[in-house]
């Protein structure tokens, strides 16, 4: 019978080991379950940090799912505010939620945003047989009858995917943005499925989410929301060149606890930059549809503050926050 007890104990020991974490010196918190962008960011960057000898031991990845990243944020602020061996994966979703006060009382200045190392450009996609050939076709249709076009996206109402078409419409001078139809489904692929199926007229999402569907010819991208056309996808025009001054990229990066010293902050910024410059990361980006987007240290923090201010303004207009 002792043997059986051991099995039970063994199984739970394996579990507590993986759950407790923090065995190694450097830790990366992915504020979500395994799978998805934050987990990917932590695991890939963690691996490269070790491979290019920026850290001495493999980076321990901890998954801390909850409240769309809010749980990890509040843990970092309240329990690990001075932990210099900790980075937390973040993306546009993090700043969108901070701007909308979705993390309770938390504010962006409670942590320090240390760097972005890549970005997934926003895209607006329609089914192959859609009557819309250009972004302007679609904008005109919405101006004529706002209820004629419904968007599907992978984030909840008010989330980053919802914001993208609204920013375009605002840039086109259309201000009745609450009349624009949007449904938030479980992820970008699901949103494409709804659009190919004809239930929604367009999909709003990230470049990486549509690559397979573009290749198979089931969808067409009307616009990519980056500064310049994306390498490898040169036939997709930017919104900018079609006359809509909108850049919306889903950056992938990190924040660190707010209480660490400037020296510690700068040391992390250097490490992040080293990863961004490495061949390993360039390969990982190409394989996952990410475009180069490197902003580290103080530059990044300034940019983040600006993005949060814009998001808060747009959120107020669509009524997600007061």
């Amino acid at each position, binding site marked *: *019978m002792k043997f*059986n007890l051991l*099995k*039970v104990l063994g*199984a*739970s020991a*394996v*579990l*507590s080991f*993986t*759950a407790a974490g923090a065995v190694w010196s450097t830790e990366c918190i992915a504020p979500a*379950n*395994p*799978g998805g962008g934050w*987990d*990917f960011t932590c*695991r890939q960057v963690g*691996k490269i940090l070790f491979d290019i000898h920026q850290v001495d031991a*493999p980076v321990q990845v901890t*998954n*801390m*799912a*909850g*409240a*769309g990243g*809010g*749980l990890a944020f*509040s843990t970092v602020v309240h329990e690990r505010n001075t932990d210099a061996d900790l980075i937390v994966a973040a993306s546009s979703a993090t700043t969108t939620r901070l701007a*909308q006060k*979705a993390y*309770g009382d938390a504010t962006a200045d409670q942590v320090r945003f240390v760097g972005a190392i890549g970005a997934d450009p926003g895209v607006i996609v329609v089914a192959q047989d859609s009557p819309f050939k250009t972004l302007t076709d679609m904008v005109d249709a919405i101006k004529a009858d706002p*209820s004629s076009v419904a968007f599907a996206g992978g984030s*909840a*109402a*008010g989330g980053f995917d919802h914001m993208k078409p609204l920013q375009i419409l605002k840039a086109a001078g259309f201000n009745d943005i609450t009349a624009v*139809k*949007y*449904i938030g*489904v*479980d*992820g970008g*692929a*699901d949103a494409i*499925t*709804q659009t190919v*199926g*004809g239930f*929604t007229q367009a999909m709003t999402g990230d470049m*990486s*989410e549509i*690559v*397979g*569907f573009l*290749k*198979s010819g*089931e969808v067409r991208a009307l616009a990519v929301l980056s500064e310049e056309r994306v390498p490898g996808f040169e036939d997709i025009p930017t919104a900018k060149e079609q006359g809509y001054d909108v850049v919306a990229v889903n950056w992938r990066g990190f924040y660190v606890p707010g209480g660490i010293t400037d020296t510690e902050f700068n040391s992390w910024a250097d490490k992040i930059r080293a990863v961004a410059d490495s061949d390993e990361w360039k390969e990982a980006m190409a*394989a*996952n*549809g990410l475009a180069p987007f490197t902003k580290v240290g103080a530059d990044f923090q300034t940019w983040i503050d600006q993005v949060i201010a814009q998001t808060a303004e747009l959120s107020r207009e669509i009524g*997600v926050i007061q």
Partner: protein
Amino acid sequence: MDIFANLALGFSIALSPFTLFLAVIGCFLGTIIGALPGLGPSNGVAILIPITFSMGLDATAALVLLTSVYYGAMYGGRISSILLNIPGDEPAMMTTLDGYPMAKQGRAGDALVISGVASFIGALFATIALALVAPYLARIAYKFGPAEYFALYTLAFATLGGMSSNNQAKSALAAFVGLSIALVGLDNNSGFNRFTGGNLHLSDGVDFLVAIVGLFAVSEVFVFIETHGKNSAVGVALGKVTIPWAEIWTTRWVMLRASVVGFVAGILPGAGASLGSFMTYMMEKGIAGEKGGFGSGVAKGVAAPEAGNNAAAGGALVPMLTLGVPGSGTTAVLLAVLMTLNITPGPTLFSDRPDVIWGLIAALLIANFVLLLMNVPLVKIFVRVLMVPPAVLMPGVTMISFVGIYSLSGSYFDLVLMIIFGIMGYAFRKMDIPTVPVILGILLGYQMENNLRHAMTLSDGDWTYLFSSPISIGLWIAAVLGFVAPVFLRGMLKKPEMRNIEDLVD
């Protein structure tokens, strides 16, 4: 034939001694993880991800290991359902309804063998279907919009009434509780939190794993303490395991039907294995009628849900591989693994990476035969894990429940919630209220509400949109039939089935 050439390619990749070794290890670990209450396929796969990476496995080897664990956990879930009346994972929930009564009648061995064979049939069917028609089947997902999904979930709830034949009101109450709990959290359609009381832990909603472990495992511990082990499920004897050929033969059509329905439920993103096992159980119960004795410990009652949930597990791989849409929690984790291995699932995966796809399919076939061996002739190995004396087992179950739930989000809050669900489960058992509808409400309520509201957004609030496609009309007809059929059947047979009452709730 292309398919044979492809399969040959697959086997040439999967049949190396090392991948076979991984498949056996994966199947063994998976079955144990599945059998332990509180640990299901999604934590099983998630736990093994870091190990896969640190071993430096290539894409095919990693997939073989992880899908073996996935399939293994689907097989293993039934073991504790049958022996302890605690589902080892969420899709095995329906197996408790007839599996545990069978065990109490001294037929635990039969139940394990029949459900093991049913799992094999379901999984084998799904794997073959995956190989033959996956690229075409993926298109089914394009036919399902918000209206169709809403009708599908309504169908699931409409058949709930037939679940406990004693008191529909109690089933309805339980489903209502489940649906109410599903409302907690971030509202996808407005971006606001609902019923969270400002608590960040609640803004993702209540995880159904927390609910299922609380309602089943923790409440079992309470009952055990109260009765000093006399009236508890723990300690069911398992005699010699023989193979009941005759009963397996009589359930052959049940297994096949359940495989088909389970597979289709698996293909639909968001429906998943739990819906698969639920729908197949209710379907077979309807076909068998009141005389079928479902709920009192019949072979068909374990064959149907097990074939259904294993077929759904295979089915869920279809949208994951061909669309990149995960149909369940576990496939979401597998999807992440694929992305990390630089494989992007999507419509072109079958043509871009035939080595991965066909290696995977071959590995699934191999895993299935390994699992049949482990789960039928060798099932006693796993049973022994659960057959320790109650004094060891109960603390063990409690400990694993706590550790398993803590590993979900690493927060004590879920543990408190789990205990609250445990108390609720204990109270429900005292009042003879079934707990399965609560889980179903939590599991499907969120999707059901979201799809209804999406439908209303797309149609500008026009209700007729819900009945505007042939698929949704068909599902509505099935829902209405499923709702009223038990009433008429009861009237015609005029024989109240009294046996079911005790067995369902205790």
